[in-house]
């Protein structure tokens, strides 16, 4: 079970410092077959990863499409999810996948409500028919606790979200209170969008939120967010970069090219040494959506298949064995935590005042 060390800003597992080293497989429950899932878990665990991040209901607005996909809900006549009619087969398979992950030694980071299912978010394309009615948030949260609670997941209340209105906050607060009201010692967090540098005050001031996940994201001209966002969150809670640039993703501009291992590495070290030292999340384009080579991606872009994406070089950057792994760094920072904590912000300000070296 994961707990929080609020003094040292760390996650603990069995009361020992735990470096959250996650891989991103948002759509695994919708798309992965049991055989594929076993292949994936075996490979990622052999690399040293210890957390899998999955969207409980998948990501409907941004996904790969296959004929054998399972869906969490039945469909309405308009082709949208009917959030009152649960597809039990989906949750049976998802629970088996969660059990397999735990068996391999992973912690399940379960994202409850992806932004497309929540009111007044910047989900693209915007489609109110995908939004869960507010009165269904509490029962669906209970459903997820019923199905996955026995695996002691991290409850990530939101997925990739912004906060467009008070209703958005109301949705997530309802999910928070439902989880914390029912699950003793539940560990919670939120996954926020790349253009959201700070959580709304109501969450930052709330005891319902246990640790911070921010997203430095995929905008080529804003990769400094890996450290600027971390600095912004320095304070009371453990911090983790929950979505740096996805390896293999094309740059979102006209200049061409795509993110590769050095970009991932830069995001990782910039995050860790800016204070987001409780862990790191890796993401491979094609892996997160569980894409297959012969399938279509909803938003038109060509993606590598998941088996290719799984073997991208950047996944090794966080676990490189030659003395520079994030895990070793975590150990060092943890050991020297107090001096690191006091020096860092001052050190950054000093750097900013210094003239450029000739």
């Amino acid at each position, binding site marked *: 079970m994961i707990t929080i060390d609020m003094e040292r800003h760390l996650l603990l597992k069995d009361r020992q410092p735990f470096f959250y080293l996650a891989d991103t497989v948002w759509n695994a429950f919708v798309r992965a077959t049991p055989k594929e899932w076993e292949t994936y878990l075996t490979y990622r665990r052999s690399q040293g990863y210890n957390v899998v991040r999955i969207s409980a209901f998948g990501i409907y607005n941004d996904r790969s499409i296959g004929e054998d996909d399972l869906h969490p809900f039945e469909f309405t006549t308009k082709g949208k999810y009917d959030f009152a009619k649960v597809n039990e087969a989906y949750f049976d398979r998802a629970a088996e996948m969660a059990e397999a992950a735990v068996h391999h030694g992973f912690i399940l980071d379960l994202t409850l409500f992806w932004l497309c299912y929540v009111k007044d978010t910047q989900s693209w394309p915007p489609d109110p028919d995908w939004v869960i009615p507010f009165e269904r948030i509490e029962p669906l949260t209970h459903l997820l606790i019923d199905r996955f609670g026995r695996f002691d997941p991290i409850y990530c209340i939101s997925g990739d979200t912004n906060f467009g209105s008070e209703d958005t906050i109301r949705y997530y607060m309802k999910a928070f209170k439902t989880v914390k009201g029912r699950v003793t010692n539940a560990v919670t967090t939120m996954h926020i969008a790349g253009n959201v540098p700070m959580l709304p005050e109501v969450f930052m001031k709330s005891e319902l939120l246990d640790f911070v996940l921010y997203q430095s994201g995929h905008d080529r001209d804003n990769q400094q967010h890996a450290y600027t966002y971390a600095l912004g969150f320095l304070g009371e809670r453990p911090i983790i970069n929950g979505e740096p640039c996805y390896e293999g993703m094309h740059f979102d501009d006209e200049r061409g090219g795509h993110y590769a291992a050095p970009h991932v590495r830069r995001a990782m070290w910039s995050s860790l040494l800016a204070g987001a030292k409780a862990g790191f999340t890796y993401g491979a384009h094609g892996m997160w959506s569980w894409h297959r080579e012969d399938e279509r991606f909803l938003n038109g872009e060509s993606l590598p298949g998941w088996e290719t994406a799984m073997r991208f070089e950047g996944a090794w950057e966080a676990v490189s064995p030659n*003395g520079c792994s994030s895990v070793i760094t975590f150990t060092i920072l943890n050991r020297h935590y107090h001096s690191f904590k006091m020096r860092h912000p001052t050190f950054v300000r000093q750097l900013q005042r210094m003239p450029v070296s000739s």
Partner: protein
Amino acid sequence: MIYQPDNVHLRLVLDAGAYDWDVIELEGKRILKPDVRVENGISTLKRHPFQSDSLWIGIRK
């Protein structure tokens, strides 16, 4: 511990001479002893010969 995304001289307001430094070139995972100079309380970590980003690890002597 310092992450250096680009290979440039780095100036620090601390006595870097009080530390033993290793530089890890993160592309090829090669390790070297860097050139560190201290003058009037300002330390200069000189550019290393590698192309890629690097991790500087200083352990107090």
